[in-house]
């Protein structure tokens, strides 16, 4: 089985090199090239507005290529999402994608990523929350965007992340009796030998 070398823990997280993340120590080895960040005007405005608006939740705003990245503590995901959706200055009415990234090998954590878009304001952002490996659990945002429904079910199937508050967290893409979480890095791609 061919597999890429897992990035070292210093290598992580990729992509955040300036703005809000600038104060932190460099997270990557110098020789690994980093993607350049180039925010649009809307993105810059958003990056300036976000830390103030969400200050009480202890958010951390950065950027990845052309998107604003905002990290929130996992407990406040729903409140932050609701505020991002309802506040007219943000008006993130469109949940483009919800996914989980497995950083267990590096940090022992799963990262849930929400890709948001505002049709009225034409700006976009990524919202990230981390949850520890043992009992990964992120509050469900189905109450904010109903479109999160199947994404969360799928992520529950593939990564075993629990989404408390989800109305119907039953297996979606996997059979009901499937064991294991095939999305995780620890799950082998093939468990059979070629013959």
């Amino acid at each position, binding site marked *: 089985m061919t597999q890429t070398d897992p990035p070292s823990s210093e290598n992580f997280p990729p992509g955040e090199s300036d703005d809000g993340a600038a104060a932190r120590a460099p997270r990557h080895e110098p020789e690994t090239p980093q993607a350049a960040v180039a925010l649009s005007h809307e993105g810059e405005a958003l990056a300036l507005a976000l830390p103030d608006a969400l200050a009480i939740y202890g958010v951390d705003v950065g950027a990845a290529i052309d998107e604003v990245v905002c990290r929130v503590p996992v407990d406040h995901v729903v409140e932050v999402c609701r505020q991002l959706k309802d506040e007219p*200055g943000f008006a993130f009415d469109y949940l483009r994608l919800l996914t989980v990234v497995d950083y267990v090998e590096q940090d022992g954590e799963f990262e849930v990523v929400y890709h948001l878009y505002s049709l009225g304001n034409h700006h976009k952002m990524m919202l990230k929350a981390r949850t520890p490996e043992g009992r990964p659990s992120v509050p469900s945002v189905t109450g904010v965007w109903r479109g999160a429904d199947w994404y969360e079910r799928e992520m529950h199937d593939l990564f075993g992340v629990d989404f408390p508050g989800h109305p119907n967290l039953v297996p979606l893409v996997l059979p009901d009796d499937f064991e294991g979480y095939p999305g995780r890095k620890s799950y082998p791609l093939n468990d059979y030998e070629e013959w």
Partner: protein
Amino acid sequence: MSAVDVLIAFAGLLGLFTGLAVAVLSLTWMERKTLARIQQRAGPSVVGPHGLLQPVADAMKLATKEDIIPAYADQLLFWAAPLFVVVPAFLIWVAIPFGDGLSVRVLDLGLLYLVAISGIGVVGLLMGGWASSSRYSMLGGLRAAAQLVSYEIPLVVVILSIAVLVQSLSLDAVIGGNTITVGENTRELQGQGSIPFAFVMPLGFVIFFIAGLAELGRTPFDIHHAESEVVGGPFVEYSGAHWAVFFLGEYLNTFVISALIVILFFGGWSWPSPPESVFGTGLSDATTNLLGGAWFLFKTYIVVAVIFWIRGTYPRLRIDQLMSFAWQVLVPLSFANLVLIAAVLFYDWPLWVMTLLSLPILFGAAFGVQRRRGVRGRPRTVRVLRKSAGEIGRPVFSGGKPGPGGVITTPSQAGD
């Protein structure tokens, strides 16, 4: 009844059965060819010249295929259901006149017989649908029951109008006319030798044709075996010979309705002119009958072709649309047709008055159906937003500064 009569009747039935089996085979070939031509395909073309032997190959395949009975099926009903469809479809032909007095059995109550027998077929569909113990079958069977019972009414009322028009229930009278005597008065009732009834009562003809299509369960009324919804409806669990028998019944019914349309509305073998007036009276009876029968069959095939053409053209109605069309449009219209023809005969008006009265009703009804159901051409709800006209697209960022709460002051166009 002597033994000879029995033998003749038996021979007639045997001939009829053979003829009908061949007719059904030809219909399957014809349907596939017609549809193929409509759809820019070649259709069957490998087995035999122009694929003519394809139906034979299909019949052999079906006869030798394994006949599967589902484990949960009600076996007796499952076995019997196809017979309830095919036997009535076949029995109807006993009364159909191929020529002057040329039918297996000349029945004075031919029209009544037709109506009575054709009502049985629905029982077979319902039985098959129930016995298969499949949801699709059951839905299909119930759909069939609802649909066939509903459309039976306009169909029967139109047949009744015909009976009123010729004052007889005999199919020969429908074609050849009738003479009745009431007290002192003798009255000549015209048959279809000169003017077919389609022109006398166009309203009745249209109703009969539409209701006939629905009785057959053919497009646009094929909801009881709609492949995309109930996957074949009552037939979904059938295979092999049982399925073939259902299939036979369906095609026989198609043929029957076409033949009835020809007999009731296009003069059967006689219109536009019976064989005698074309070839003279010098021919033998057998030849005359043969020519008449051939002419009758030819017309029937034309009607069948129209039915296939409709199949290649239309989408399918939904069940509520189908039912409301039957009960709200066809049933009232068929009664109107009956009342009209009765009035015309009662006041002894000439028959063209009937035509004159029917046509406005027909067109009025067609117009009303279009209006009432809100179908006034395609809905105009979609418009194209042009990029060059600035109707769509994100606004150019005007360098606006983020306001309180991160409000970014750009004119927003998108959103709903």
